Structures are given as structure tokens and as C-alpha cells.
């Protein structure tokens, strides 16, 4: 006997309806997006409303709190607005993944911000579809192009029916490697390593003492394998990637296998953070800056934060180990263009906005703008000779590495010349070995599968 007032058929329909509606929400997730640019933009001028007649543009970045996490960009914006009171720049930001997702949705919905940071793999697709402005004319006016090393611009050119399009300009230099706490090494009677054998010996010694050698965090930040990407270059990545992409070579090869076996040796020696799986990159930085790790796999962007921490005075920068069984030149550091700053093509259709964007970019790459980068521990992306304050010891050690005689940089970081799917697999392959999930052979196959 039913106690419910509804007829049985109606009850069935109600339940079936609720089941279908609830389950369909999963599909709805795919059909709708996340946050979109333009929501609660934080004006870099402290939220002041634009004055009458002022042109407003939005700069969308890959940090939730640009002022705190990317002070260089924030200060450039501030300085630009001080010199150009007729332009108001709203700075907004989200985490890397959220930001890239938001830019995809914004492009498809016609709501792209005027200027934004984006992964190069996404930028090339956006450029091919006409979402991005050609910055070539801007670079050619006022001879701005001449202030860039050729390698800083060549990675952001796409071919279109009307010729090459300069769709992006370098946001900051991508100088990556290890920050080393020399006090920790000295405490255990260790010298700064130079070769892989040195690094392995350091890891074995520190591990026996319960000290982490390399602070790393994989949780949601699987891209944080910068020093290991440079190591790929020490095993011939740059020379063979074109052939791998063309299907004439394979990522599964004896040279790369040796590198992955070395990563495995480091993992076996207990070199990495014990909670590498559950902490993220930001927590790995905190692990290092709080003196709980001897090294940090990061880049020049972290120099300022490290300088201000308790380990700043003891920190020096290292390009990473050389390998006796490596391939080709071992004296490599990574100083390549990072992901680009790009400009929405739609924004440039408005003459006033276009002029404001051009003025801002010209300021960004002027000596004044580049010195603000340097003051915030970022390497200049132009040929500007930086004036480094003597208090910037961590940043100076980065400059020492990239200015060392006989050392050079690859044209690009390995993950920036392949697709998002391939680079994701590359990160997974490295972290997979570090976390003991993959054998070196399995890790190589994970990447190769994405090339097939």
C-alpha cells in the first residue's frame, strides 16, 4: 500500500527526472565554463575609477594576486599609469590552469581581455584563428624590434595567408635551474655539486640525515620540472625533437633513457620532498625558504621571494648537473622566452584602445620597464644592460650563471615546442619517475604515446 499522495506513475517520473537531471549535470559541466575574464577586475591603481576620457584596458595574468605574486608586472603597470594618466589598466589574475581555461572560453565568447598572458601552445592556436593581434607593426615602429635578441621573438611567429604574424612578445625571461642553500650543504660538509655524480652524493648524504635535497611539489603543478627539462637538453633533446615530432625518431631512446634512469637514482636516494605528491609548487618554495630543503627546482621569478626569506643570504643559483654520459654540450643553462604576452585582435579595432595598448607595450619593453623587471629580480627580455643592486644577491647569482663564459642556452624550453598534450605527458613522465609510479622505460613510453 502506498502512503505517498502521488500516483505511482508520477512518482516514477519524479524519481527518473531527478536522476536524469542530476546525472546530466556532469555533462553540463563540460558544456559550461568556469570563471571568465572581466569578473571583479582589480584595478592596478588601487581600484580608482577611470577618470573622464581615460581609456581602460585589462591585463589578465596567471597569478591570482598579481601585486604579491608578480610584483614586477604590477609595478610596471603602476609606473606606466603614473606617466600616462589618460590610461587605466585593470590587472586581473587567476591560477595558471584557471587562467588558461578562462582565456579559451573568453576567446570563444568574444570577451578576451585586451592584453593577457597565455601558454604558447594556446597562443599559436589563437593566432591561427585570428584572435590575436599582429604585433609586428608595433615592434617595427620606434625601432622596438631592435631592442630584442632575435631568439626572444622568433618563438612567437605564426604563418598566415598574408605572411608571418608576430602574435606575442616575451612576458619575462625563463631562466630556470636550482636555487641552492649553501649553508645546508656546508653544515653537512658538502660542496656545491657540479656533476650528476656530485648531486647524487649530496642526495645520499642529506637523505641519511633526514634532509630533503630538492624541494618539489607535483599536486596540481606538474609543470614544475624546469631543471629536469634543461637536463633533457643535455641529452640531445633540441637536436632530435623535430625528428620525433615528424615520426622519424622516438622519445623512447637510449639517450633519454639514461637521463630518466638518473632521475630514478635521485628518487631512490631520497632526493625529493617526501610529500612531493601532495604538496604543490608554492608549498615547495615555502619548504625551501623555511630552510627545510637544500635546493629548489624553480626559476628567476622566485629570486625575490627567496631573497626576502631567511635563506636569501645563503642562496645561490645553479644551472643543474652536467652528465658524463650526456649528449653534446653539457654547459647549458636555460634562458629562453617564457609564455608570451598577447593582445586581443578585437581590442585593436578600437583606435583609442589600440593606441593605449601600444603605449603600454612600448613602456614595458623600454629601459625603464626592463629596469623595473630587474629591480624585482627578473632578467630583462631585451638587450638592456641591467643595473643590479648589491642587495640582490640571489638575482646576481642568476645573472652570474647566464653570463658565465662558455655556457649557452637552448633556443627554447623543451615543453614549449610541443603540444599541450605532449608537454603534459612530459611532466607526468618526469614526476612519475620521481614519485615511483613509472619505471624510466614506462615514463618514456608515456610521452612517446602522445607523438603517435
Amino acid at each position, binding site marked *: 500500500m502506498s502512503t505517498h499522495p502521488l500516483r505511482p506513475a508520477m512518482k516514477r517520473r519524479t524519481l527518473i527526472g531527478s*536522476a536524469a537531471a542530476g546525472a546530466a549535470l556532469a555533462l553540463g559541466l563540460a558544456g559550461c565554463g568556469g570563471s571568465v575574464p572581466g569578473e571583479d577586475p582589480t584595478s592596478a591603481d588601487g581600484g580608482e575609477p577611470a577618470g573622464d576620457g581615460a581609456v581602460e584596458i585589462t591585463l589578465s595574468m596567471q597569478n591570482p594576486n598579481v601585486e604579491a605574486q608578480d610584483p614586477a608586472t604590477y609595478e610596471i603597470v603602476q609606473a606606466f599609469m603614473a606617466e600616462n594618466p589618460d590610461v587605466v589598466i585593470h590587472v586581473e589574475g587567476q591560477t595558471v590552469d584557471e587562467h588558461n581555461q578562462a582565456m579559451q572560453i573568453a576567446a570563444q565568447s568574444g570577451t578576451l581581455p585586451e592584453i593577457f598572458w597565455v601558454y604558447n601552445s594556446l597562443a599559436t592556436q589563437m593566432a591561427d584563428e585570428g584572435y590575436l593581434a599582429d604585433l609586428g607593426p608595433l615592434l617595427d615602429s620606434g625601432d622596438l624590434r631592435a631592442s630584442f635578441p632575435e631568439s626572444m621573438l622568433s618563438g612567437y611567429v605564426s604563418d598566415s595567408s598574408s605572411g608571418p604574424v608576430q602574435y606575442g612578445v616575451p612576458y619575462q625571461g625563463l631562466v630556470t635551474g636550482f636555487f641552492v642553500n649553501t649553508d645546508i650543504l656546508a653544515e653537512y660538509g658538502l660542496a656545491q655539486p657540479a656533476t650528476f655524480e656530485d648531486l647524487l652524493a649530496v642526495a645520499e648524504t642529506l637523505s641519511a640525515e633526514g634532509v630533503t635535497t630538492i624541494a618539489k611539489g607535483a599536486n596540481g603543478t606538474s609543470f614544475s620540472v624546469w631543471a629536469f627539462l634543461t637536463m633533457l637538453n643535455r641529452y640531445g633533446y633540441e637536436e632530435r625533437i623535430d625528428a620525433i615530432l615528424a615520426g622519424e625518431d622516438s622519445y623512447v631512446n637510449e639517450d633519454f633513457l639514461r637521463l630518466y634512469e638518473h632521475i630514478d637514482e635521485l628518487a631512490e636516494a631520497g632526493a625529493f620532498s617526501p610529500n612531493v605528491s601532495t*604538496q604543490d609548487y608554492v608549498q615547495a618554495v615555502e619548504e625551501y625558504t623555511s630552510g627545510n630543503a637544500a635546493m629548489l627546482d624553480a626559476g628567476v621569478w622566485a629570486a625575490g621571494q627567496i631573497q626576502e626569506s631567511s635563506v636569501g643570504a645563503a642562496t645561490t643559483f645553479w644551472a643543474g648537473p652536467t652528465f658524463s654520459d650526456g649528449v653534446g654540450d653539457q654547459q647549458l643553462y636555460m634562458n629562453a622566452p617564457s609564455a608570451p604576452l598577447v593582445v586581443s585582435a578585437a581590442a585593436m579595432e578600437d583606435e583609442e584602445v589600440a593606441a593605449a595598448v601600444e603605449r603600454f607595450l612600448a613602456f614595458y619593453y623600454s629601459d625603464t620597464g626592463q629596469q623595473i623587471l630587474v629591480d624585482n629580480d627578473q632578467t630583462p627580455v631585451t638587450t638592456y644592460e641591467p643595473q643590479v643592486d648589491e642587495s640582490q644577491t640571489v638575482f646576481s647569482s642568476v645573472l652570474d650563471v647566464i653570463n658565465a663564459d662558455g655556457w649557452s642556452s637552448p633556443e627554447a624550453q623543451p615543453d614549449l615546442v610541443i603540444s599541450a*598534450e605532449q608537454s603534459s605527458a612530459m611532466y607526468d613522465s618526469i614526476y612519475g619517475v620521481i614519485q615511483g609510479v613509472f619505471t624510466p622505460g614506462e615514463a618514456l613510453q608515456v610521452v612517446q604515446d602522445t607523438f603517435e
Partner: protein
Amino acid sequence: MRWLSRPWQLAGMVLPALIIYSLYFTYPVVYSVLQSFTDAKAFGSSTIVGAENYTSMVDDPLFWSSLRNTAIILVISLCLLLPGAFGLALLLGRRIRGAGVLRTMVFAPNVVAPILIGLIWVFILDPHLGLLNELLRLVGVAEPPAWIGGTTLSPYSIGSVYVWQTVGFIMTIFYAGLKMLPGDVMEAAELDGAAGLKRLRYVTVPMLRETIGITTVLVITGSFKIFELVVQLTGGGPVHLSETLVSYTYHVTFGLQNYGYGMALAVITSVLGVAVALGYLAFLRRKATAA
């Protein structure tokens, strides 16, 4: 005053809601299904690839691991969440001192954003820094398990946190259902000698069949939608081995920019969710008919 009783007039009243619903729900769903048969990327034109996205799932180990993880979470939810919530509703439905406060406390996790729930539980479950393993070490467990971050226990931990987060909500539905039971029937059952567990088995549970059906459907669909907990607790790691179907769909779609395959995953996720829910409802109906 005219009554709006003609069919076309009634349809006209429903039309605005129908248009909005179609725009914001039906269209994205239909669009997603169509996309699942293409090789769509983030941008650019796409070509129809037929069922290729669906067939490639068979060879995708991460799809199978995310399906397995979702199934584990579903089973944990069904085995722990429903009986637990029902038990709590029975317990807190009694006239005991402080029951209202306890009900509020049990319901509290449900009003906290899932992303914060994840954050709270990271501090508890982290194998190296977490409270749980710290306690286990204190009582002499030399190598406590990797609740999250390992290759084995992550889905069980995610499922358990989901149970903790949702139990208050499901309990509230059961509590409301228990309060709706007619007092005279319960009294009559007691007079007939049905008390305690007997009354629970032969009177209370059968009369709550509809409530149990609805809560089970909610738990099933909820289990298939878990996303934020995965992001916060494990990030899908290590190397995507703790992804659920929804978080893996997100990774493929927005991380790898493989929209076609991502939409196919979304379709399969939805179909599985609906199938499990409808299967359960069919089982309930058969059981009711047999009774």
C-alpha cells in the same frame, strides 16, 4: 477577469522558462554531444571523426583508472553514506538533549565550499605532515599509509571525505522523512508488538522507500560529480591516477585542450550516471512490486 486556461495560453506562460532552460542547459548539452564526435581542439575548425573518441577510451588507461576511482567512491558512498545518514537521522530524531545542536554540527560541512573541505582534509590526510599519520606514529605505527598522494588509497580517501561532507545533507532528508511518518501508524505498529528494530525493519524503512530512493539517486549522481575534492586533495595525482571521471574530463578538455575527447568523456560520465541511477530505480520498483 479572464482565466488563462487554454493550452496555448498555458504554453505561453511556460515558454520564457523553456527558452532560458534551452539556452543555458539543453543547448550546451546537445553541443557537447555533437562535439564528442569531432576532433575539436580549443580553437579552429573540427572534423567529424565518428565514434573514434569513444573507441579510443578503450585504450586509454587513465579513463579506466578514473572510472575505477569513481566506482570506488560510489560504492563507499552507498555503503557508508546512506546507512550512516539514516542512522544519524534516527539517532538525532529522538528527543535527546542537544539533538538540535548535533544536527547543526553534522550538517555544517555541507555548507562549506568543497574546495575548503579539501583544504581542511589535506592537513589531516597528508601522509607526511597530516594529523592522522602523526597520531598513528604516536601510537607506534612506523610507516603509516599514504592516504592521499599514493597509487592505492586516494580514491578511498576522497570517497570518505565526500561521505563526511555529504552525510549531514542526506541525514536532513531522512530526518524530514522520519518526521513526516504518520504518528498513528507508528503507534499502531507499537501496539501490535512491533518495536525497536522490528518496527524499523517492517514499518519505518518500507514507509521511507520514496525518501530512500531519492537520497540514493542523489548520492549516485553526487558521486559521479565529485571534482573539487579531487583537485584539492590530490590534484588528480600521482600522474592522474587518482582522477575521477569528471576531473579527468576537465583535465582532457581544458588542460590538454582536447575538446572532442573531453566531450566524449563527459557523455560517457553522464550516461553511466543516468544508467546507474535508473538501474537502481528499476531495482526499487521491482522490489516494491514483489512486496
